[in-house]
């Protein structure tokens, strides 16, 4: 046997980046979708939708990469988590179908425009809610025996997971509002700023509640955060989060255009980090660590070879397409 490289940390990092990119990218365009129906009139709605039309498809591709990446890197985690969240996944998929097709059908199937308008907004909200439920039930853990989930398909709906779902709606809507502040101007931008502040209040409350709720339901998580010296070492996490909330609030009120969106992303980074700190090194909380759930060395190596080449190319493309579609969006001449 030749000595082999430990690939588990590499795959953990790749998957973590992939999932975060999905949350950040599809997060803001789902958020834009939710705010869509609150826009004052049809021309404003056109602008709101056009602000994400060229990029939503690429954003959603990260969902495929994330889920298939989980199967590839940690197959048993995929086999336990996905059936455990059967109905939230179903809700998310159906919601994404309606929302994705609304982009084209809203124009082409003009007789049913109202239907597709509602499909777009409700689909975006439902997809966000479902993802929050997935997250909440993931943190809570599942009823596992051996290598399989053996609970009920309804176990995932708990007060905590439903609260997480509502929290994620606010979080995504905050990102969406931040995006619209960047992409719009004038009255529409003012509207986005005002909505953004409401979403920020919801997001801040959700982060606070989840942060207090999690250690209460799980003594391990409580021990991790509140034992000495962790309580000192981890203190920057809540402190920075609080700072970001204050900064986002201020940015939504003053003239800065990018700050609110970046602060919103920062809040997601901190929340993501907080969950990772709470759960590490588990990938199926209470049952499988990252290492125990890892795919065979050969599987990891075979996929890594291509991924190390292809992933940077994909990131370059994604960056490039955002560059191409930079600037304010207008309805009369599309993008300029």
């Amino acid at each position, binding site marked *: 046997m030749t000595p082999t490289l430990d690939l588990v940390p590499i795959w953990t990092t790749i998957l973590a980046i992939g999932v975060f990119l999905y949350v950040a990218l599809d997060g803001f365009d789902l958020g834009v979708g939710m705010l869509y129906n609150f826009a004052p009139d049809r021309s404003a709605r*056109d602008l709101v939708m*056009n602000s994400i*039309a*060229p990029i939503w*498809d*690429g954003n*959603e*591709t990260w969902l495929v*990469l994330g*889920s*298939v990446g989980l*199967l*590839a890197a940690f*197959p*048993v985690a*995929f*086999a*336990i988590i*996905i*059936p455990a969240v*059967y*109905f939230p*996944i*179903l809700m998310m*998929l*159906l919601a*994404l*179908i*309606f929302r*994705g*097709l609304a*982009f*084209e*059908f809203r*124009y*082409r*199937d003009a007789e*049913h425009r109202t239907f597709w308008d509602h499909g777009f907004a409700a689909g975006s909200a439902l997809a966000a809610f479902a993802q929050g439920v997935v997250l909440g039930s993931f943190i809570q853990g599942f009823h596992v025996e051996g290598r*399989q*989930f053996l*609970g*009920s*398909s309804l176990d995932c709906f708990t007060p905590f997971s439903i609260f997480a779902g509502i929290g994620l709606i606010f979080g995504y809507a905050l990102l969406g509002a931040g995006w619209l502040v960047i992409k719009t101007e004038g009255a529409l931008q003012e509207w986005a700023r005002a909505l953004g502040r409401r979403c920020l209040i919801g997001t801040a409350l959700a982060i606070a509640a989840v942060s207090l709720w999690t250690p209460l339901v799980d003594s391990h998580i409580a021990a991790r955060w509140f034992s000495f010296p962790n309580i000192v070492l981890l203190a920057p996490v809540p402190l920075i989060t609080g700072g970001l909330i204050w900064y986002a609030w201020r940015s939504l009120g003053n003239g800065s255009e990018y700050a609110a969106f970046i602060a919103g992303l920062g809040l997601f980074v901190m929340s993501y980090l907080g969950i990772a700190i709470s759960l590490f090194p588990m990938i199926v909380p209470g049952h499988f660590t990252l290492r125990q759930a890892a*795919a*065979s060395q*050969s*599987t990891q190596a*075979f*996929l890594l070879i*291509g*991924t190390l080449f*292809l992933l940077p190319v*994909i990131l370059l*493309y994604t960056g490039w*397409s955002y560059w191409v579609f930079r600037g304010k969006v207008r*309805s009369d*001449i*599309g*993008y*300029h």
Partner: protein
Amino acid sequence: VHLDPELLSRIQFAWVIGWHILLPAFTVGLASFVAFLEGAYALTGRHVFLHLSQFWLRIFAISFGMGVVTGIVMPLQFGTNWSRFSDAAGNVISPLLAYEGLTAFFLEATFLGVLLFGRKLVPPAMHFVAAALVAAGTLSSSFWILATNSWMQTPVGYEVIDGRFFPKDWLEIVFSPSFPYRLMHTVSAFYVTTAFVVLGVGAYTVRRGQFMTEGRMMLRLALWFLAIFVPLQIVLGDLHGLNTLEHQPAKLAAIEGLWVGGRGVPASIIGWPDQAAERNLAEIAVPRLGSLYLTHSWDGEVKGLKDFPPDQRAPVAVVYFAFRIMVGIAMLMLAVVVAGLVLMARGRLDQARWYLRLCQIATSLGFAAVIAGWTTTEVGRQPWTVYGLMRTADSVSPSLTGSDVLVSLLLYVAVYLVIYPVGLSVMLRFVWRGPIASDEAAPVGGGRSKSPIEALAAATSEKPT
């Protein structure tokens, strides 16, 4: 009523993949067709190719979008409903699925953007390259997903430890024995499907008498293409069948409706396979013909269904009839193509209204054949998910109840029955409007907002080049 989660999960998978496969069946071929049109325009500068490319790109954008959203459903089915299969086979199949995402979706997304929005921004040659890369993306997607499916049909290159599959040789896994045949037969089927759509739309355009240049061009391009690919597809299908005989004899016996194997077996033309009685009712069969075309010898040996225990046989009637529907459609296709070639040789192609109507009716033939062929190979794989090694009954998620799956199935049915008719009607509207350049196609008055794609195309065309 007892609701069986396994049976309902199978119906659900059949439902979501059956609808999904219609879109790649169309877009794989259409991407290559658009690449051809772009190449022809770049080379000849003839506007008919440009108009046709713009026309089919509009339809491509809709069908591609539908393919994306119904495609996201597919990998998650492995987790929601087939979690024991995911755990057992994940180490082997997951990199193939991941490579589909990494190679195909990336290429398609990147260069579809250039195709839709970049007409005025890039030179025609670059536009052609973009079209070729989108086509390459769709082919790469077919490559990886069919490699996955082929491994499930003819698994090699693995070892089993504690009931789970582990990779031993990736080259063997990717290029499993049925893969080359399945890939060629499927991609060729997708090309034929698209060509019949182009033929039908061309016939409609010519029959209506508008856009005659474009209509005649579509009709002729499709006919010449089909004149090569329909016979080729029949040959590829035969090769794929011989491969099945070698590697999946129980499936082949179900296809043939052959209960008693041996030397010099008959060919069952039509009948009713009775799974319980282990024979075909009301059968018309030709003696020895089965051995002749399966082994190319009058008394070649072929295994029958009775050579396999009853619990290792597929639902025979489904496989038997699906296969006959596929072959029957192939014969119809051949007849349409031969008739078209004869009319073209006599110079009467554009005037034969009966034939143009026939071509319109034939538009959906390819889709029906794809569904029939897919049913043949997938139901024929039963009762296994990994042929001969892992049973479908052992693959389903253990936590699911029958009512869980019934709810999800009904929702998938309801949603797909909304989106497919709308998608079809939107594409038909493009066909009614006809192959005109996109700026001429802009709606006159009416205050209709432009779609993102139209708005963007208009915006980019205003940029100084």
